């Protein structure tokens, strides 16, 4: 099994006719994801490869029964596109777009929550259930079907972690990139809940970074509610305070958000924290049940 996306995923891509949208739509389809529709305003009636393009998300939903939306729309219009997908009743929206203004996302966030839709991202690599469906920009071949759930705030760092797991023979049930922005739809706790509830997931890898308190909150949640073994990693221990390290969310302000505080909270919650990134795959091989 897996969480959020699987063989039943019917994908619609917002921004399917753009350069990035086209490229990654093809990569998702090549991986085996059922891509059933695209949305680009003004290009309704056209086709991208064999995929029908619609003017609105509502039309796409009605005509194709799409149940997952992947957002590739440029930042100034992305929050609008996320809300359009939610409004059309698409139950899962995965927003890849990087650079959406925080205040736009805040409004979209409250809209999404009120409509009961799950949002993953924005500013994330997406989600993949190896061997079943890929909804995102991650390289498919580094993944391997298996029983470890991966949840991460990062993009390429997630690939590094997954690659090490795969090289050590540790397969993944689902890998979720929750995104590096201050406002995101799905947080660590949401992903942890899903992994805990999924009978096929036997262990969890959680990849965090400096800034905010999401990792501390997740650690407290794990202590109370998660029975499966968890490996943790925190990026940014050498980052100076007060500077935004690429991700808008990765900033240490005052004494909060430091890597040290996060590691302490995670270890207190019984999480095995890996300090040397190079050792993550091996640790997973030792710790997780076969």
């Amino acid at each position, binding site marked *: 099994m897996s969480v959020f996306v699987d063989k039943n995923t019917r994908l619609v891509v917002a921004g399917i006719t753009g350069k990035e949208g086209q490229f990654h739509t093809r990569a998702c389809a090549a991986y085996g994801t059922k891509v059933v529709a695209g949305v680009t305003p003004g290009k309704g009636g056209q086709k991208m490869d064999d995929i029908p393009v619609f003017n609105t998300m509502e039309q796409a939903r009605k005509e194709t029964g799409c149940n997952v939306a992947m957002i590739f729309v440029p930042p100034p219009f992305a929050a609008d596109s996320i809300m359009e997908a939610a409004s059309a009743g698409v139950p899962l929206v995965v927003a890849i777009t990087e650079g959406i203004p925080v205040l736009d996302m805040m409004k979209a966030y409250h809209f999404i929550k009120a409509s009961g839709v799950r949002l993953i991202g924005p500013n994330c690599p997406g989600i993949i259930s190896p061997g079943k469906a890929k909804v995102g920009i991650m390289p498919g071949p580094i993944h391997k079907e298996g029983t470890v759930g991966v949840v991460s705030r990062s993009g390429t760092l997630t690939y590094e972690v997954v690659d090490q797991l795969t090289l050590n023979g540790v397969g993944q049930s689902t890998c979720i990139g929750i995104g590096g922005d201050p406002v995101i739809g799905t947080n660590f706790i949401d992903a942890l809940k899903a992994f805990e509830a999924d009978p096929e997931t036997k262990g969890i890898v959680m990849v965090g970074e400096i800034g905010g308190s999401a990792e501390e909150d997740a650690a407290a949640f794990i202590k109370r509610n998660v029975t499966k073994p968890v490996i943790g990693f925190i990026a940014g221990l050498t980052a100076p305070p007060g500077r935004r390290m690429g991700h808008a969310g990765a900033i240490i302000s*005052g004494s909060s958000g430091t890597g040290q505080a996060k590691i302490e909270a995670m270890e207190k919650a019984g999480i095995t924290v890996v300090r040397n990134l190079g050792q993550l795959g091996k640790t997973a091989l030792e710790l997780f049940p076969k």
Partner: protein
Amino acid sequence: MKIHEFQAKELFKKFDIPIPRGKAAFTVDEAKKVAAELGTFPVVVKAQIHAGGRGKGGGVKLAKSAAEAEKYIKQILGMTLVTHQTGPEGKVVKKLLVEEGLNIAKELYMAILPDRSNSTILLMASEAGGMDIEEVAAKTPEKLIKVWVNPAVGFQPYNARALAYQLNFDPEVTKQFITMAGKLYDLFMKYDCSLLEINPLVITKEKKLIALDAKINFDDNALYRHKDVVEFRDLNEEDALEVEASKYNINYIKLDGNIGNMVNGAGLAMATMDTIKLAGASPANFLDVGGGASAEMVENGFRILLSDKNVKGVLINIFGGILRCDILANGVVEAAKKVKLTVPVVIRMKGTNVEQGKKILEESGLPLTVAKDVWDAAEKVAAIAKKAKN
């Protein structure tokens, strides 16, 4: 993006938020003229740099006469101001703000910022104004009053009342505060701010509420819709290399180590820096060329990180996935030739065509070493750093 106090006060003025009378000045003569035009003493001479802690560093002075004003203007303009936020090298003061002095009865603190934990806008105020607010928050959190505004609904007067009635105001001041809080919220939302802070916000003996200080940071992602704010950008206040990097959409932050590094993706870049440290060396920078990383970006990134004279070795860590390593390798070789590479470079790359990429690097005749994984790369580059020291 950060702006100066005098620029933030220009925006305050636009929203009818009370500020002291005053004007910015870039020369001694201009500043003297502003002081004279105020027609009253005392006046306050304030250094305009982006860092906080200016008062403690000697960058803010109260002058009781024209002669004293001139003395302070000459003293502050051109001085190297060192505060806890500038780093030990300090910042040269190139601009002043000269303002009327006020009869201060009480100093307060007020701030607005996004709260990422619940995706709302947080308004904070405290009677402990004029102090280091981090310290107030840590030692006496009960003195920091907070209210949260749902941005989808917008600011409501009760939000301001919730603050005002916990701050023990005179009824006259309460009224002014409620109006001001609404205007500050409007400014915050209209201009996509990421932080708005007034420390201190003062109540004068005449019972007027006035923003004595003003600090605003903006969401970089929203600057495309605020051309007037972009004009406020002061490149003097930013690191020259960081400015250069931002031209190419490269995220570069200078640090104080000697191992330059270039990585695609912010999370992996931070983790790579950490790994360098674990291996016993120290990173000279944070450099993220973006998840995609084209050959051109690699070239620009390479040039930028090598212009830091402290760099004794370089680690390149690119997790391509979709990116082809032969293209990346060609980019690195081209860049290395152009910048006349003199320091050793360790490269760890992952993606399609790794073997071809490796071959290109090895046959280039340049001091390029290929590492098999991230730890191997960190150890190799740490060995280089150690050698450089001896």
